[in-house]
């Protein structure tokens, strides 16, 4: 399978934070959710990918090309939507479009006008007079109007309401079905990804914790709920994260078969969501 993105051994030292040997790849035509808590290293990784930051070590290949050497060629084929709009606030949407459109060889004005209509965006209104959701939609309209093969989204849904987030997920799904684009979607709101992502890459404290297909990740973990007396020191070792309170325990294990053999029918087993997987990996064992 051809990879649209390959990151190997990526290092970046920012003093108080370090990105440590980050490696993962994204096959062409798939959506990858890049998840992790705030400050985990998602934005740093994306900035390194976009050459907004300089890496200390490692290798980044986009479309099989080195992202520094072939920066301009690569950026012609990458569309980006960031958590904040960096377009010019005092200009109208059309003026902002005039600025950006010149930089792309394959700017598709018809596609842009169609997106403006689809997203109900007022072309002559100044950007500063739009809501956060509308600004994100404008960023998306720009991103989808220059025939990019790879869509890079850094926390595009943070601070947005569930209706807009759901709408955005629909657009992404449609893109994938109709246009065979690849998407790297960074977020800490994992529920956004459950519906659309094919792969999940989970980063915490600058290190990749898990990176696999979403189904493998969900099926490879089990959420266990039971009484405290069922927990022995030996049993606790089977959990990645464990939450105890006066009424019992709740834990996440990456060994569903082992858990079933160990506990039998004495505990409640559930399929975890991405949110639970992330929380248990980040927080580990703790008492409430």
């Amino acid at each position, binding site marked *: 399978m051809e990879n649209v993105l390959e990151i190997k051994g990526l290092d970046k030292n920012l003093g108080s934070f370090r990105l440590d040997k980050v490696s993962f790849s994204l096959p062409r035509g798939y959506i990858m959710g890049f998840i992790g808590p705030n400050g985990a290293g998602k934005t740093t990784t994306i*900035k390194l990918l*976009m*050459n*907004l*930051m*300089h890496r200390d070590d490692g290798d980044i290949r986009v479309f099989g090309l080195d992202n520094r050497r072939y*920066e*301009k*060629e690569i*950026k*012609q084929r990458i569309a*980006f939507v*960031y958590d*904040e709009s*960096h*377009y*010019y*606030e*005092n*200009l109208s949407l059309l*003026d902002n479009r*005039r*600025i*950006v459109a*010149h*930089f*792309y060889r394959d700017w598709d004005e018809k596609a842009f006008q169609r997106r403006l209509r689809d997203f109900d965006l007022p072309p002559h209104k100044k950007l500063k007079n739009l809501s956060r959701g509308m600004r994100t939609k404008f960023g998306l309209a720009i991103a989808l109007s220059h025939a990019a093969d790879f869509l890079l989204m850094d926390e595009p849904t943070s601070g947005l309401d569930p209706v807009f987030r759901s709408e955005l997920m629909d657009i992404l799904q449609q893109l994938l079905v109709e246009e065979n684009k690849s998407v790297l979607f960074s977020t800490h709101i994992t529920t956004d990804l459950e519906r659309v992502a094919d792969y999940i890459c989970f980063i915490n404290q600058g290190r990749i914790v898990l990176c696999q297909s979403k189904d493998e990740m969900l099926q490879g973990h089990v959420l266990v709920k039971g009484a405290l007396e069922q927990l022995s020191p030996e049993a606790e070792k089977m959990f990645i994260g464990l939450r105890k309170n006066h009424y019992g325990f709740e834990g996440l294990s990456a060994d569903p078969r082992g858990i079933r053999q160990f506990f039998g029918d004495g505990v409640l087993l559930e399929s975890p969501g991405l949110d639970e997987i992330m929380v248990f990996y980040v927080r580990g064992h703790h008492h409430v």
Partner: protein
Amino acid sequence: MFKLLLKDLLVLKSSIIWAMTYLLAIIVIFSMTPPFDKFIYIMAGYGATYILIMGTLMAEFKNQSDILLNSLPVKRHEIILSKYLTTLVLTLLALAVAAILGLIINLLPLPLSIRLMSGMDAAIVLLMAALTLTIVMPVNLIFSNQAARVAIVMVFMLLFFAPVWIKGFIMDRCEAEWAQVLINTAVSQPAVLLSVGAGLLLFLLALSLIISLRWYEARDF
């Protein structure tokens, strides 16, 4: 590069209108106020350039546009080169508008009498703009937009007071051999003196460009 220049002109739409209004006001007001009438093109041209440079810096700062620009298919050195080039184009634009306004005022039957713009006016405005750019651009990149605003005011003050101070400094030492040479050259060959000044300024401008390029290339956003 041309795309970045177009970007600056679009971003500056409102500042350009404001700068041109200022330009017209300066020409009209000071054409009737001796001895300032001798310097109207310098005051108007440089003032308008100042407004436009500040407009560009403010717009880029306010929108954190470095992140947007560096995400587009454009190299970092092109962004910096375009910033310098934009200032030159804006200065030429301000000079052209000032010259045209002067010509129109002369042609119309108005109760105003002003001279036409001379080559020396244009040369002095270009040198003043180049000096401003030389100092303000690296300061803006290395420190902050706030520091750049302070720097641009200081350059403004320098351009206002330095000539008088330099003149006083030279006249106080007019017996010295170097001062004699300088005064003689200024009187007999002002173009030579201007060329030396321009050469020195070009060297400083090149140094400023190199510093800006190196800083920007190494920067993390």
